[in-house]
């Protein structure tokens, strides 16, 4: 009997968008497979934060209190990925969950490998599509930096899948939410399980990260100098977008590595990606080709970025960016 468990993440005690995508997909999958589904969150969030999940069809949700869990470590600990892996695996096993869904976020990616081993699961990470074919689950994921896709079949009853954030739709539908709190002492976890301890989380305040943004404005070498990135920032501001960068400008020290999009940077799939003064090298495309709407601004009409752009203007970023910022500001979005 199949039984689906979605691992739901919070940030600042609120559920992440990727968690809504996950619970939506878990619900749809359970309907197709005619099986149960539930969510599990290991979080310090209060119960009232969980109501947001019910808007996306969540029903049964298990909650493990992160602060109580950390007390078991007997140390000063924000959390421990190996310990959390064991908690999820023990919980899943004890409750017969055999299909586990994660988000391919920084958190999800850190535990995907170990959780698959601990739960004896066949694994497909970072998927962008899932289908049932003759009763078999078939997952699709990009490989070779998005230059190809593979369809993967699981030769095991235990399955672990991680979903690329921003790709699956978080569908609004009311769920009859019930939250069950799990006593941390039933999880078979001891102090020695708390290894590789996170001591501190440092967040760059107020800055939206490219990996989590729904809109991104990226700049490349066409901006010519670091101070010109105010043009990128101004447009990002009126759009409520995050700022991104090509590797060329990151390597030049104009922008931080955290903004780099591409094969050796972040993989993003926002609903709007505006590439400004970026040529569209294959390694850059690797990180953003799954964006839903791609806009290119480049003075070279033959720049490869135009080949994957949905919209574009051939022209000078120094003229177009200020005009575009003013025009979009008028819309008051």
């Amino acid at each position: 009997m199949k039984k689906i468990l979605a691992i739901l993440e919070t940030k600042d005690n609120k559920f992440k968008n990727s968690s809504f995508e996950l619970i939506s997909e878990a619900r749809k999958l359970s309907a197709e497979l005619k099986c149960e589904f539930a969510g599990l969150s290991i979080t310090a969030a209060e119960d009232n934060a969980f109501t947001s999940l019910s808007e996306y069809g969540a029903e049964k949700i298990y909650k493990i209190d992160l602060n109580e869990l950390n007390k078991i470590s007997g140390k000063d600990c924000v959390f421990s990925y190996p310990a959390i892996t064991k908690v999820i695996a023990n919980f899943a096993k004890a409750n017969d969950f055999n299909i586990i869904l994660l988000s391919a976020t920084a958190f999800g990616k850190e535990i995907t490998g170990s959780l698959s081993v601990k739960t004896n699961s066949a694994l497909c990470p970072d998927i962008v599509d899932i289908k049932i074919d003759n009763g078999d689950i078939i997952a699709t994921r990009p490989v070779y930096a998005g230059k190809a896709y593979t369809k993967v079949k699981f030769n095991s009853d235990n399955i672990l899948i991680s979903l690329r954030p921003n790709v699956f739709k978080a569908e609004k539908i009311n769920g009859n939410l019930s939250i069950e709190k799990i006593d941390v002492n039933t999880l078979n976890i001891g102090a020695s399980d708390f290894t590789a301890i996170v001591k501190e989380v440092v967040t760059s305040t107020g800055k939206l990260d490219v990996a989590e943004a729904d809109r991104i404005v990226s700049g490349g070498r066409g901006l010519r100098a670091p101070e010109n990135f105010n043009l990128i920032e101004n447009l990002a501001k009126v759009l409520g977008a995050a700022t991104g960068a090509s590797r060329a400008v990151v390597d030049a020290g104009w922008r931080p590595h955290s903004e780099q999009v591409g094969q050796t940077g972040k993989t993003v799939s926002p609903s709007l990606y505006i590439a400004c003064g970026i040529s569209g090298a294959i390694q850059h495309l690797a990180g953003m080709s799954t964006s839903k709407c791609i806009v290119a601004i480049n003075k070279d009409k033959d720049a490869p970025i135009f080949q994957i752009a949905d919209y574009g203007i051939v022209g000078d970023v120094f003229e177009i960016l200020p005009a575009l910022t003013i025009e979009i500001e008028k819309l008051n979005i």
Partner: protein
Amino acid sequence: MKIAVCVSLVPDSTTKVKLSNDKLKIDKNGVTFIINPYDEFAVEEAVQLKEKHGGEVIAVSFGTIKSKDAIKKAYQMGADKGIFVEASGDFDSFTAAKNLAETIKDLNADIIFFGKQSIDYDSSVIPAMVGEILNLPYINVVTKLDIDGTIIRVEREIEGGKEILESTMPVIIGAQKGLNNPRYPNLRSIMASKSKPVEEKKASYTGNITEVTEMSLPAIKGTGKILKNGVSDVPELVKLLREEAKVI
């Protein structure tokens, strides 16, 4: 200090991907293979630690016979020994992790370095898999690393910030860009790497629990609407984004 580093061989990032006839993998004809770029950060960190604390660096690679080239590259960057484990046929991440773990287990290394992810399948799962198999702590996407006696302190990149972690050793570390600047091998080390022997073993674990049923190339996008009149097209672009694409 004994340091192991896992290196894999991948198609160069500029490779134009074509499919094999059975549409299950890529056509490797004419493809240039390189050491996985993230593994260069792993090798560099291992060699720097050896230079600072003494000891030896052992490079391990699992795969087809060509994977020995990844070990040769590690030699050029300063690795002392290499172990190549030959796969029998196609393998998934778990099979690779099992075989790497089997080899690493006997090395008694203090630190086992990996790249953050290999750029062929982009899985980013093998470091934590090996950690789980060997019951060792693992930390991936590491951008800074310091050793303080028996404790290792690292920074790990996350969305919009970083985490600061502490671990005992032995530990598994996945290297991210930013950890260091990988060195360019000089001619002498390139020449020396050619004759340096590599220990060879056969895979001890075979069989896969996942199966690729089809590989495909991305659908070619219908050509976009590219406006040619520069700044005077800005209002038109905004209109298209609002009314047609409905993204703003």
